[in-house]
């Protein structure tokens, strides 16, 4: 036993060492490329990095922003990562976020008259969002199982459907006539997610997201269904030979992905916007959360804990992006170039390591 414990520890050390090497190399590589990129536009590299970090971590308001961005990024990337582990490519996170937002808003309006206290009302609203997201994931799941339709196409199409549904609702039945734009009436205040840092505006979302990430880690490693998801994702044919009902597992995977992203949408409405509107799947001028979630899942190797770390990095960059414009006159989008550089650096370093192992 003792020797096997030591072997296990050694194995673990090796894994950690390998992990550190890969990611520190990738980090160094992306810093160098990022610096070269900023310098080529005539910007001061240190000022640029300093400004981004100071804005997103060094000020209370910026830090609150970082936490608020972290929540949908983490939940969205978990929705991608869980699908990936099960062998399914979920590119419908944006649609699922919209679906969750609609579910939350609809529930809030439906229960408005009951005068529920917030500890009851908020969870019910979240549940509405989760269920709507679940349904948005169930559609590609059932089409996959019944008719072998690729979930990639279905989730992309559902993104558009959700987008235009929000467009319709915010212009039509739920429109706030006082606002004069495509936005719904505000949700009742008892359905608003409480703030952790009321002054700077950080809501409870990041705590929920962190708890969900830990829960997903537990689900993946310690439960039969998590094992079956990993088995199906790794080799569906062998999983079937092992008695696993692959269709049933698919009908767990896709709706769960939808539910995770749906929760993100519900939190965006309940914690941040307090209304339904187009554009809750990202900030102005930035790529949508759904696109970023795919990148985060790649960097985090589809592991809930890795994804959590990667989502934190992306949240910091995203929250600091506006300040680039102010400090060195680079457009905020430069940050997204930097994000893409990180992804490429990680992929490059991993590919190199794989080749050298062979």
């Amino acid at each position, binding site marked *: 036993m003792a020797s*096997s414990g030591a072997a296990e520890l050694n194995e673990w050390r090796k894994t950690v060492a390998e992990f550190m090497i890969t990611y520190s190399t990738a980090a160094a590589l992306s810093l160098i490329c990022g610096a070269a990129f900023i310098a080529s536009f005539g910007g001061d590299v240190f000022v640029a990095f300093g400004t981004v970090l100071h804005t997103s971590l060094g000020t209370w308001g910026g830090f609150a922003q970082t936490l608020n961005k972290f929540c949908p990024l983490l939940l969205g990337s978990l929705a991608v990562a869980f699908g990936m582990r099960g062998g399914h490519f979920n590119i419908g996170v944006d649609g699922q976020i919209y679906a969750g937002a609609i579910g939350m808003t609809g529930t809030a309006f439906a229960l408005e008259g009951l005068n529920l206290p917030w500890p009851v009302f908020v969870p019910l609203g979240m549940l509405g969002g989760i269920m709507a997201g679940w349904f948005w994931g169930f559609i590609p799941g059932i089409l996959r199982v019944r008719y072998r339709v690729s979930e990639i196409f279905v989730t992309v199409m559902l993104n558009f459907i959700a987008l235009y549904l929000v467009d319709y609702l915010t212009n039509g039945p739920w429109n706030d006539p006082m606002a004069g734009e495509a936005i719904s009436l505000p949700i009742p205040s008892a359905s608003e997610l409480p703030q952790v840092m009321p002054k700077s505006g950080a809501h409870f979302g990041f705590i929920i997201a962190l708890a969900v990430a830990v829960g997903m880690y537990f689900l993946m490693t310690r439960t039969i269904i998590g094992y079956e998801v990993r088995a199906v994702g790794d080799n569906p044919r062998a999983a079937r030979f092992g008695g696993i009902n692959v269709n049933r597992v698919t009908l767990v995977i896709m709706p769960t992905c939808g539910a995770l992203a749906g929760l993100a949408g519900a939190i965006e409405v309940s914690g941040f916007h307090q209304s339904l509107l187009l554009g809750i799947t990202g900030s102005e001028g930035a790529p949508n959360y759904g696109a970023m979630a795919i990148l985060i899942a790649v960097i985090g190797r589809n592991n809930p804990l890795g994804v959590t770390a990667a989502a934190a990095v992306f949240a910091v960059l995203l929250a600091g992006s506006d300040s680039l414009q102010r400090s060195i006159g680079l457009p905020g989008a430069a940050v997204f170039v930097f994000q893409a550089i990180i992804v490429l650096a990680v992929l490059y370093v991993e590919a190199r390591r794989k080749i050298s192992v062979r």
Partner: protein
Amino acid sequence: MVDDIVPRVEMYGIRKSFGEVIALDGVDFKAGKGEIHALLGENGAGKTTLMNILSGLYRLDEGQISINRREVSIHSPLDAIEAGIGMVHQHVELISNFTALENILLGREGSRWKINLDAHRDSAEKLAANYGLSIPLNEPVKSLSAGIQQKVEILKALYHGADILILDEPTTMLTPQEVDGLFSTLKALAEGGLTVIFITHKIKEVLDNCDQITVFRGGRKIDTTSREAASRKMLVQMMVGERGTPPENKRPAGPAAALDGLPVLSVRGINTSAKWGVPLQDITFDIPRGLIVGLAGVSGNGQKELAEALAGLIDIDKGDIHLNGTEVSKLSVSARIARGISLVPQDRIEEGILPSLSLSENFVLGLHPHIFKRRGFFEQDTANELCRNAIQEFNILAKNEHVPSAHLSGGNIQKMIVARSMMISNKTGKNLMIANNPTRGLDIMAASFVHGRLNELRSHGAGVLLISEDLDELCLMCDRIIAIHSGELFGSFDGPDYDIYQIGFLMAGQKLETGS
């Protein structure tokens, strides 16, 4: 002996490595005119690599090659063809929509614009007649049997001017009758002055048919000997080397348990649809307790479909399957595993393992809904312990139970799969084990190990269905052999003494006149 004959092929100090793996480590090899020379060795011994170098598929790292005493440098298959070397690969590499003649001409069409088919047909026919090869030249290749397709390959090599003919494991897809036909062709070719190099791992074929035998092990040549000087025991020892002698797996004749009880498996009139592969037609047979029943057949005649129908992986349209008297044909794969049907799948990589999951996670696949104490939870500790025990008991070479299963070698992966099936069998009351080609590609020691485990199951009173394309293996292991052809069962023979020609007759789909 060898030095008396004019050497046609001489290879000296051949070295070849793939990355860090040394495939050939300074090998010398000589083959004379007019001889059938066997290259014998286990998988990975280097025999095929050496011949791939000779036929221009691989480039050597070091060493030299002479043909007819003249040093040659072979950089491509074209160079090899020019030097008079032709290779027939293990899997037929013909274009299936082309006729036999068109395949034979491929690469020799002559003019760029126009092919004089008739002239070619005449000379191909003449060549075929010379060596007694009867081939329907105008038939598309896909309509020809495996044995004829192989003859097409041989004729193609001859037509391209080969006087050194290399055949890589040529008998794996053939019935015993076709094997005999192949060897009489090869003998005629050798008598006509060709050098025939014959790659195989089957000792019996070597002792029956070859003039010279060179044994390989671990990328080295062990020795060359003449057939007269060789014996089975000596060849096995040379192939296996320091690892000792594999156990003989002798077991008492006759069934291990009483036959009058309920059969473990009783299959009545099952049919499957063509969408699953070869359709099964009216399959009926029993497997009594304590018996190993062998399913003989040329690959691709419904063996895989039958195994999968029994395991619940494909639906049956008609008929029923009883396990210990209970109908199971409507049950899921998982429910059948729980009742004691365990399957060693044909393709161990594609169907047997979850490559990036750990060995212990692989080991509990199939039983995972049943072996953990808390419902719905996957208990890593329990899985690890079970797997550690299996690693010890089955002597699986793995660093520990946490490594991804893809890191194991093929033989060790197969050991893990057999260990897993044994565990399923033991924990579900020792019922039915279906082993589909469980020793394919394994070395002698690993194959003998698998055989020992199947015998152990048998002596515990389980029923075993052993599917194999190797008739010798079936004759060694089985209490009863049934033959399958095009999804239909033909005849049933009780051991231990089998007439392999009679079985081969049925494998080819011909009904026995006399009955069995």
